């Protein structure tokens, strides 16, 4: 398992549109007791939590000191069309309910979640989970919770025994922080959102939009999709936290592929995000993206292939946002700072400069918007039931803090509300909305001029501008190099001799994090956001990253892996001048 703990950030490209995120929240109750009429899920979880946390304290070898349930109810929408026809439509008539149970034995100083050194694979899981009845049948829901709780508790017992042994036989750990932070319980009940998406209307709109790709003979596979929906979440813990949250989120995706004559596969993906159906794009907006994707693919097919290169480059705002997410964001996730299998690039750098002094970075799940841009990573409470906080990560180039879940690290004993997971997983510290700010903000023209100056200074014939990035990945474990790779989709060469800019293809950006951060020379004044789904050990979660464009003194690009197969032999059927129809010929 060489990929252990590698944080893979596979993001889909997005262009932001101005969104207004308005949601009515129910009044925040202060009483810890459930309101009368609380839904069946809450009542079922409450009942199992009460008797399990009471009775399991005294059963088994090691006492249960913490128990929590998270229950998700997903009302998903997923529609996709290609070439004028629907290729995917929802089949479920009911929402999907799932749950996770977290059981901790021992004490907050040392419990069953403690890392066992030298073990491969996922180092711990504090619980279990699975599917739940979708009907509001309290007893049937309780039956499912009961069995998983029992299993989680038994697993916790067994693992805690191993933790105690590991402690005895291994050398002392470097970071002797507790395993579970102490937090104030929260009680928060949000109104449950009802999705207002008109699936039947979209089942007509998407095929008709997707038919526009038929005009382009060079476009191979293509699709237009609508995904998202509403997710309700309930969180209950033996410490008294009771949460009910409900969020709505949609994404329209436009995807297309083409093939260059040399066999290189080209693809572009663009998307829209909306916090509710009222902010979904119009057909005209989607059509504009379709046209943009189709024409960019056509230009890319004809673009020359770039050779490996080291030199100056501008990462245009959203590309820069992905860059920060990969090279920096994953390395300031708190739990990685004490895991002795992690690279710990920044663990001991708190209070010291790690990037130019004109850069500051903060992480803010509480922000619904940045300017007029709706942010995907917004939430009020994290998946450990802790209230989200805005955290200053870097101030004038100096590292200040980490993203913290309830897993403390040296110097950071408390959570700052960044414990996150996908439904069904166990939370770890993750990014939400990462905002990169600069005090050296220059107009883009000036940044471009500096790019040329820098290329000249380094004796390079050109610099590069990265406009779009599909996503990327990074490895943070000690098993693999501390490196990252991002996949640019649209790249142009800017020549020092004044020739017009030229689109190029076939490169990946690669590099190592510390060097890349030190190479930032200046930024633009053009902040924009990148939205996507970030994948790591606790699953895929929605995030946003905001950054201005960034001029980097040295960036390294390497050749992208390339398909060897040729473009299709026959033209697409609708573009075939020789129509041969009329049945099978023997």
């Amino acid at each position, binding site marked *: 398992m060489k990929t252990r703990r590698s944080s893979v950030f596979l993001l889909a490209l997005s262009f932001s549109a101005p969104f207004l995120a308005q949601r009515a929240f129910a009044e925040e109750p202060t009483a810890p007791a459930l309101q009368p009429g609380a839904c069946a899920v809450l009542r079922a979880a409450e009942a199992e939590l009460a008797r399990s946390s009471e009775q399991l304290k005294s059963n088994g070898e090691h006492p249960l000191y913490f128990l929590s349930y998270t229950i998700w109810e997903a009302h998903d929408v997923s529609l996709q069309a*290609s070439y004028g026809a629907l290729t995917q439509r929802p089949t479920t008539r009911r929402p999907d309910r799932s749950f996770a149970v977290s059981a901790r034995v021992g004490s907050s100083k040392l419990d069953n979640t403690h890392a066992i050194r030298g073990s491969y694979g996922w180092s711990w899981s504090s619980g279990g989970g699975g599917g739940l009845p979708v009907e509001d049948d309290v007893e049937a829901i309780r039956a499912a919770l009961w069995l998983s709780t029992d299993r989680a508790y038994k697993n916790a017992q067994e693992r805690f025994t191993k933790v105690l042994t590991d402690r005895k036989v291994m050398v002392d750990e470097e970071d002797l922080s507790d395993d579970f932070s102490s937090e104030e319980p929260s009680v928060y009940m949000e109104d449950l959102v009802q999705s207002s998406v008109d699936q039947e209307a979209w089942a007509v709109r998407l095929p008709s939009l997707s038919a526009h790709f038929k005009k382009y003979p060079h476009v191979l596979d293509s699709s237009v999709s609508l995904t998202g929906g509403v997710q309700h979440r309930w969180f209950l813990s033996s410490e008294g936290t009771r949460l009910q949250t409900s969020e709505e989120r949609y994404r329209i995706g436009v995807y297309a592929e083409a093939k260059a004559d040399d066999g290189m596969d080209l693809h572009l993906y663009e998307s829209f995000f909306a916090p509710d159906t009222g902010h979904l794009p119009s057909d005209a907006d989607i059509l504009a993206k379709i046209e943009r994707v189709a024409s960019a693919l056509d230009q890319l097919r004809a673009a020359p292939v770039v050779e490996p290169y080291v030199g100056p480059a501008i990462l245009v705002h959203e590309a820069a946002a992905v860059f920060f997410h990969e090279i920096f964001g994953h390395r300031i996730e708190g739990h990685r700072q004490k895991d002795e299998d992690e690279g710990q690039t920044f663990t001991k750098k708190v209070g010291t400069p790690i990037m130019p002094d004109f850069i500051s970075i903060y992480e803010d799940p509480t922000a619904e918007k940045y300017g007029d841009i709706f942010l995907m990573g917004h939430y009020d409470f994290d998946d450990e039931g802790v209230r989200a906080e805005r955290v200053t990560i870097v101030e004038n180039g100096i590292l200040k803090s980490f993203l913290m879940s309830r897993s403390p690290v040296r110097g950071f004993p408390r959570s700052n509300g960044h414990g996150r997971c996908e439904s069904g997983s166990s939370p770890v510290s993750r990014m939400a909305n990462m905002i990169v700010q600069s005090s050296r903000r220059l107009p883009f023209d000036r940044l471009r001029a500096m790019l040329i100056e820098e290329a000249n200074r380094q004796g390079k014939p050109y610099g590069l501008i990265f406009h779009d990035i599909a996503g990327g990945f990074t490895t943070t474990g000690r098993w693999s190099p501390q490196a990252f790779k991002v996949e640019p989709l649209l790249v142009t060469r800017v020549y020092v001799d004044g020739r017009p800019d030229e689109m190029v293809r076939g490169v990946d950006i690669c590099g190592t994090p510390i060097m890349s951060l030190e190479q930032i020379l200046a930024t633009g004044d053009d902040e924009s956001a990148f939205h996507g789904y970030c994948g790591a050990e606790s699953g895929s979660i929605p995030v946003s990253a905001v950054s201005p464009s960034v001029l980097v003194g040295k960036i390294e690009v390497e050749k992208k892996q390339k398909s060897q*197969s040729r473009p299709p032999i026959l033209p697409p059927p609708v573009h075939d001048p020789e129509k041969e129809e*009329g049945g099978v010929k023997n």
Partner: protein
Amino acid sequence: MAALAAAAALLVWSGVALAQEQADDDVLLRALEDEMARTLARLQLSDMERPYYVAYAAQSGASFSTGADFGALTHESEGPGRSLSVDVRVGDYVLDSSSDGGYFFGRFGGGLCLDDNYDGIRFRLWLNTDSEYKEALERLTRKRAALKSRVVQDRPDDFSKEDPVTLIQARGSLALDRERWPGAVKAVSAVFREAPELQRGRARFQGFATNKYLLSNEGFVLRTTMSQASFSLSADTQAEDGMPLGDADKFLGRTDDDLPTDEALLARARKMVGFLLALREAPKAEDYTGPVLFEGFAAASVFRDVLASGLRGTRETDEGRRGRGGLADKIGKRVLARFIDVTDDPGRTEFQGMPLFGSYWVDDEGVKAAALKLVEDGKLVALYSTRTPTKQVKRSNGHCRGGQPSAGNLFVEASVTLPPEQLKDRLIELVKDEGLPYGILVRRMGEVYRVYADDRREELIRGASFGALEPRLLRDIVAAGADAAPYHYDLGDSMMTLVVPSILVEELDMVKPPESFPKTPYLESPLRG
């Protein structure tokens, strides 16, 4: 029980109606034919070989599924589904580009649209055909290179030539009682709620109907329709000592009309509860060597595991890897007791008034199936085959099902049979001859009894295991019952039926369960019955 009765009252039966449609307004068929014509006329990469075989297999259908745990629905879904498989081969029937040892031709290419959109279907066919052709060229080059450096004796051809079949059946659609099944899974799984000893209790219903298309340049043009419905129920518990105990049952049919009534399903669930509660109290199995009587269901499981799955040929890959053996090298040899014959007849649709769901007219490769004698007087005389020739069989006998050689309707026929009660007498005789205190009777896999020689008393035991059954036990069958009946099995998108009698095996080893088990739950079930 009042809740159950109310739920049952809501359930109404309905049959499947096949929508009668004309072949000439079938957009999918037209698109398949047109892209096939273009491919055959013009698909060629520079001066490379053109395909010698092109086939399109498509399915267009719909499915419905629902399930409940302990009386509460866990899901309910319904939707259309389409799949496309494109097979392009270069070379010839003797040596072609097909991948080694793969029975199923082509593979599923994603993304066939759900609507009858002519352009959308042609577009997908075009893309998949193009990439399959290019991969075929590469694969054949690699295969030829591999064969140059090896001596392969008696290499079977890569593909058998078969007579083309044309058949356009009326298209079917999914017609089932959508109101009935959510209520039925709830009511049936709610039965399990009455026993707080149970840790899990669930019921599932699934139904689908699909129209299958197959076109090839050899002249195969087929549009056939099929449907399937199933209802399954299962429950788990643990004995006091922690031994995990479970039981499951599944009913299959062509449509939901073939499934048992709600009353029968409820009764089956109640019987399952009673059985599991009895099993919790039952003594543990001990090691045993001696005669074993497999009744109906259990006999069908034995024949499925050691006979039906082994009746296929072998094919060594060009890299020298051996295929799965089974009974392939036993042709001409005795594999069963001398008084037993085995045949397969996909053309038969019923047995003593009971339907045979394993019947079909053409197999997955479009080949017509005829009655096939497999075992005669205990001797193996034939194997199931597909269009992929093997060392043993050069031609297809129309048994490509679910991508591999499989049974349709398999009949195990004994020339000498005993009434069921006499089978038990015979068991006791054998037990006495061996000087054993009891013999073993298996009603269903997991439902095992001791039969005491002195008073014929049956005693349920738990934790019995026969390990992996070996085909040679079939030679040790000493008696068969006069109770042959059909038992149906799910092959994924088709079914097979085994018509078998109860069998008495002279000697078999049974082993006792392990010594340690997971603990029982710390807390009582929240379901209080």
